[in-house]
């Protein structure tokens, strides 16, 4: 069920590939030297594939090489009229050859990324290969240039859109949110890929196959930069995750509490359509939400902050926010932690419980305390985890959700609690 999108994608790519191989076999391979050169570049690029922030996989050099091949008009003075089928076949062979060393080293094959790229390349090849030999197009360089540019851009966009669709399927994100997030991460590198593909295609006309090597160089520089960026992002998250555990080692909170709260909070945030950068802030805040307890001389028994007085909760939140504030760069994370205990509605409305309930249930945010959405999500997730802990019992989980529901409108954000209940219901289905 969860893999249906991916299955569909891989099947489509496989069918395109079979058709391409059949076409190439019937028509016979052309321009073998050029095909081998591009196949080698694609394999090399696949070998150097790269992980982008947010568990995204990319192979910029291989993708640019394949697109360059699909957009090729001439190598030196020699006109290239390879059929679309051959382009797809060469791309697939290159990808597989580049993926083999990864498999040998015990790393995952990442079929999905390869299928995405293959489909994008196939689309470009299907549109452009038939016109590549057309004299009218080739002579009018303005037309050829704009056509090739739009195809390269379209290919990159297609990859982004397909990835977003798959992510909707996998992570239950909203499509618009997933698309914007995907664009934010992929487009800079995508621009470099499209430009390099065009450079390879154009420069082959001036400098022959040497263009492949020459114009791979700038993209390699780009890739190195992205690798370092993705590396520090991953390290950052690992470090916060690891250091958030100090509260557990110190006996301040139950083992696994921070991680469970952060996972739940992120799931709720995704359910509510929060974008990735804010989702990351939410994750950091959730991981560190109890860090203020380090300033306590003695741990709260069991670490359940929901059981101590409201004043103590506030103090812990303040102390934690102060710690995070020290980092200066995590201002909004500190704010989320600082206000994690604020009730959804200020106490003055609590004097009219009926009215507050109705207003809260109706989702009117008129007199809400105005704490950040992240704080409200963590408040709900934290309370849920304090009640349920590491238990997977669906009955207990349902009871906890019910208890939180009773307090929506005054204590908890109804929206956050509803999202929580959906997340919990899904999870219960898995564990039943």
């Amino acid at each position, binding site marked *: 069920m969860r893999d249906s999108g991916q299955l569909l994608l891989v099947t489509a790519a496989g069918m395109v590939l079979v058709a391409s191989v059949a076409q190439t076999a019937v028509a016979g391979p052309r321009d073998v030297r050029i095909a081998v050169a591009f196949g080698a570049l694609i394999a090399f690029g696949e070998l150097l594939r790269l992980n982008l922030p947010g568990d995204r996989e990319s192979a910029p050099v291989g993708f640019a090489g394949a697109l360059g091949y699909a957009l090729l008009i001439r190598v030196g003075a020699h006109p290239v009229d390879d059929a679309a089928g051959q382009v797809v076949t060469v791309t697939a062979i290159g990808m597989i050859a580049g993926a083999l060393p990864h498999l040998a080293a015990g790393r995952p094959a990442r079929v999905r990324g390869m299928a995405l790229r293959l489909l994008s390349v196939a689309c470009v090849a299907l549109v452009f290969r038939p016109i590549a030999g057309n004299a009218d197009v080739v002579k009018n360089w303005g037309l050829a240039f704009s056509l090739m540019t739009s195809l390269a851009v379209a290919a990159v966009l297609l990859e982004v859109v397909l990835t977003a669709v798959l992510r909707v399927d996998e992570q239950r994100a909203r499509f618009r949110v997933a698309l914007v997030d995907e664009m934010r991460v992929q487009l800079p590198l995508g621009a470099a890929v499209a430009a390099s593909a065009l450079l390879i295609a154009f420069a082959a006309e001036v400098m022959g196959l040497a263009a492949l090597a020459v114009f791979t160089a700038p993209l390699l*520089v780009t890739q190195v930069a992205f690798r370092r960026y993705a590396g*520090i992002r991953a*390290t950052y998250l*690992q*470090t916060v995750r690891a250091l958030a555990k100090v509260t557990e*080692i110190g006996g301040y909170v139950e083992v696994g509490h921070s991680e469970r709260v952060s996972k739940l909070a992120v799931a709720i945030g995704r359910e509510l359509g929060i974008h990735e950068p804010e989702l990351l802030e939410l994750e950091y805040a959730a991981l560190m939400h109890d860090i203020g307890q380090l300033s306590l001389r003695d741990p709260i028994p069991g670490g359940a902050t929901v059981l101590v007085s409201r004043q103590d909760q506030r103090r812990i939140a303040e102390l934690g926010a102060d*710690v995070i504030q*020290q980092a200066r760069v995590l201002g909004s994370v500190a704010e989320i932690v600082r206000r994690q205990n604020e009730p959804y509605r200020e106490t003055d409305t609590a004097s009219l419980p009926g009215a507050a309930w109705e207003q809260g249930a109706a989702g009117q945010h008129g007199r809400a305390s105005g704490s950040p959405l992240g704080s409200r999500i963590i408040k709900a997730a934290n309370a849920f985890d304090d009640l349920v802990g590491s238990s997977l019992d669906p009955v207990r989980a349902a009871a906890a959700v019910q208890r939180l529901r009773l307090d929506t409108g005054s204590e908890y954000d109804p929206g956050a609690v509803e999202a929580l209940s959906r997340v919990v219901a899904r999870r219960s289905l898995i564990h039943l």
Partner: protein
Amino acid sequence: MGKLSRVALLYVTAVVAAAVAVLVRGPFTGLGWSYIAVLGALVIISESRATQLRQGRLSWSPSSTAMLASVVLVGPVGAALVGACTAVALRRGPSVLQRVFNTAMHVLSAYLAGRAYLALGGHVGLPDASSFPRIIWPFAGAAVTQVAVNHGLLGGVLWLTRDAEPASAHAGVGLSARLQLSDLGYGAFGLLIAALWRVVGPFAPVLVLIPFIVARWAMAQFAEQQRAYEATMGALCQAVETKDFYTRGHSERVSRGSVMIAREIGMRGARLEALRYAGMLHDVGKLGVPTKVLQKTGKLTEEEYQAIQLHPMQGLAIVREIGFLDEALAGIMHHHERIDGRGYPTGLAGDEIPEFARVLAVADAFDSMTSTRSYRGARPVEEAIAELGKWSGTQFDPAFVAAFVAAIRREGWQRSAGEPAAAGGGLGAPSTAGPQDERSAPAVQDRDDPAAPQRVDSQ
């Protein structure tokens, strides 16, 4: 540059006069103005960026690439005009004098690169397939000339102003030596712009530069993330220290001391970074030791001593999942081992102890000795050095003790804030929330003090 000496002013004036002469003399007939317009615009845009990328080996500004492309397309005078566009750059920061000098430098280097290109037999104009590979040698000559002239002129200014800022001049020369090769590499893309111009016209520079601009963006993101990471790591380490008032700033200083030792023995790059983090995180496991044990006055029972001995392992349990740390993990786990094998947690001896752990042990002990503890005052640096020497070979690795002492003699030691002896110091130890909160237990003993022998009841 600030105030210039008379000689330096004369030098700058001469450079500017030469540049003006080039620009005035021309000739301006037959120049490809459309090329100059596109490439000049490119120079203005790239020089207007507020920050130039200076990250490791990736150091580059597109303007020199554009100037080399103009050498091929429009010749020396045209290249000088493109170089002159640096004057228009909308960048705040440099003084007028700096800007004038920079512009003159670019004009001269572009012009001379153009002359070198012609002298080596290069043809001005659009290259085509027949130009390759003959064009490569004149172009390489032009690129070398440009880099050499730029660095020579810049080096001259730095040398003439070296008295004012000796440190920065020194750093500048070292930097430029490293940059020359990469400058040449990026310069090569000037030829590619020129070569592509025949096929895609003025889009050539745009297409060639997009991957680099994206790379620069990614590097800027990387630098920003790295800063954020450092700050977050520092804040979290401080949070860990709030439990123990006396060790405030300890991790930071151990980290600094370890780096001093490592530099002294020639460690660099990723290992040095990992060691720095190991220093910051070495005591993270102390959170697992009950506060009452950590702060107990008087002698410890056998059980309490064992609880303390567990802290390196608990530290390891916390940081194990931080991927890049690798070697640092071993350092954190073994930082209480002794060379004679009488340390904990595993009793390794001599070279069996990981290098990081041996470095950390020296820095850790030294900072403990030079910091105040309730049961003793801070010792002067000299006394602490003598103490390190005394235990060198039994508790500490002699090589690292020697390296540390040499580094301290040269750079000095910034001890913790609030120490009366550290007048004017205190840079290392951040003063966080008021100490009143934590001072609930006045008679606190640092139970992790490697400088004080642990007192166990049964002994």
